[in-house]
């Protein structure tokens, strides 16, 4: 019954169009026969010979950790300091949550300084910043094996410039997936 209605519908449509189309003879219009086809693969066990249930809805759950994966991953520091300020706690917490949810995930925490001062001393200062963030994450239960704190010192500024605006953006620790 459905199949017939489907073809009549097609004929009706073809008839409507015939006036503008170039001579397609009605009795030559092919009749389509529709047979039930299996529902798409997601229907799973319910497909069977009778087809997927019409009311099937498959749930997609957005990964609650996906938001954390896109969360900010940078902690900024005051001059000569390696203290993780309160305003960056949410960054640390979000990343810790990600790592706790998946014990196979590994990150590098890359510490940086602004350009002022000696290169080796700045490398060590950047290391302290990376380790401060790592420590904060350990306190939230993250395995040490999932984190490697490293430093770029002053060698990889995020922003070029020799003013406090640039310097403030370079004093940072970045959490990078491995």
């Amino acid at each position, binding site marked *: 019954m459905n199949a017939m209605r489907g073809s009549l519908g097609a004929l009706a449509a073809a008839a409507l169009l015939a006036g503008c189309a170039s001579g397609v003879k009605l009795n030559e219009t092919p009749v389509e026969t529709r047979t039930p086809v299996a529902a798409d693969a997601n229907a799973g066990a319910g497909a069977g010979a009778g087809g997927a249930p019409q009311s099937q809805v498959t749930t997609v759950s957005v990964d609650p950790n996906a938001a954390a994966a896109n969360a900010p991953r940078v902690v900024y520091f005051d001059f000569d300091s390696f203290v993780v300020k309160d305003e960056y706690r949410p960054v640390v917490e979000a990343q810790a949550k990600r790592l706790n949810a998946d014990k196979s995930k590994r990150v*590098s925490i*890359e510490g940086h300084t602004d350009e*002022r*001062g*000696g*290169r*080796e*001393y700045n*490398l*060590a*200062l*950047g*290391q*302290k910043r*990376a*380790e401060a963030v790592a420590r904060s994450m350990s306190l939230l239960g993250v395995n040490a094996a999932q984190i*490697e*704190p*490293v*430093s*770029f*010192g002053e*060698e*990889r500024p995020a922003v070029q410039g020799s003013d406090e605006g640039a310097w403030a953006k370079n004093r940072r620790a970045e959490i990078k997936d491995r």
Partner: protein
Amino acid sequence: MPAKAGASWQDRIVLWQSFVERRQARCLACLESAAFGCLPPFMTTPDALSRPHWRRRAVLAALGAAAGAPALAQFRVEISGVGATQIPIAIARFRDEKLGGQPISEIVRADLERSGLFRAIEAPGVLDEGSLPVMSEWKGRNVDALALGSVSRLADGRFDVRHKLWDVVKGEDLGGQAYAVPSADLRLAAHRVADAIYEKLTGEKGVFSTRIAYVTRAAGRYTLRVTDADGEGGQVALASPEPIISPAWSPNGRELAYVSFETQKAVVWVQDISSGARRKVADFRGSNSAPAWSPDGGQLAVTLSREGGSQLHVMDRGGGNVRRLTSSSAIDTEPVFSPDGRQIYFVSDRGGSPQVYRMAASGGSPERVTFNGGYNISPAISPDGRSMAYITRQGGAFKLMVMDLASGDVRALTDTSDDESPSFAPNGRLIIYATRSGGRDVLMTTTLDGRIKTRLLSSGLDVREPVWGPFGR
């Protein structure tokens, strides 16, 4: 061209102008005769240089004279300051210099002038080491010493570079040398001639045939370069898209240790300069940096963070047998061995701010060495163990200082404010360092009294982290 004491600045202008004109004429003459580079070193009195418009003129004159010079000489020498006594020396064009394609006499002249102890006098005429100079003629030119030489080609394709030195005042033959070298070592032969002259006339070993290494950065690429001590003849030891820091020469001059970030963290490598063969010596958890060779070349001190923080360790030159030397909760870094190998100087902020300390090379309780100022880093010890060069922060400026280790007396050496990375020449007479000038990173040398400085002018690259190689290439 040092002006007489009491000369007015107008007198100095006249002296300077005629000096520049003669230099330019000479440069044009040399361009006409062969495809040599002209290396016109410019000397001025400190007072003249202190007037900004004269500094600009000096640089413009240098650039003008050099404008036509071919790319052979990419470094120009700019010397400021005048030493107490300078030996007036004439270095004649070496006979057949053109054969090898290197301006031997020009290299010798620039070397000797750069030391600050010599003043080059014009030496016209065609002479060689076999000539018998007429002393009265040279005395008439106010020359105290005269160097003559020649270059000839040997049957095996090498070049024979010969020179002889004359004491004009006494009319005495001071002897000479002959060096047989392949064409790639012609610059080295010229530097050896300069060393021989320097030693004969000052009684001290010259450093002209030593090498320096430094890092360049341009357009996001980094290189570690090895050049002659005059900055010329540069070759690239390492090219990388990631930063390179803290190069350190092995005591035998054959290897360089350095820190590379090519694996996205600081790792210490050791590389054979001649073959390019390299090995990682420290790649532990966290950052690995600040390599320093023991004087016998058998060990490296390094800064490791594998147990947290930045702490000094020592290891065999192959990277094995790692032993921890410091146990503080502070930053301990920048180790450097004393020349007798018995002590290690290093930087620590265990007292609240970075200062230089010293301890036995086997580890043990450190004693503090720097007390002036709240930020002292980058120690370098002179070859005789008596002086230490380092960087101090004063206000926002970073300045090169030298300390007499026995008395603790400290002296500033520069009037620039962004100094970094001092390193002693192996004869202990000069310090090379990096600083910022005209918006660029540049390399400078200075005498230990700070009076004579030279600038190694590069071809526009930012240059940093210079280290002076040992004797005996």
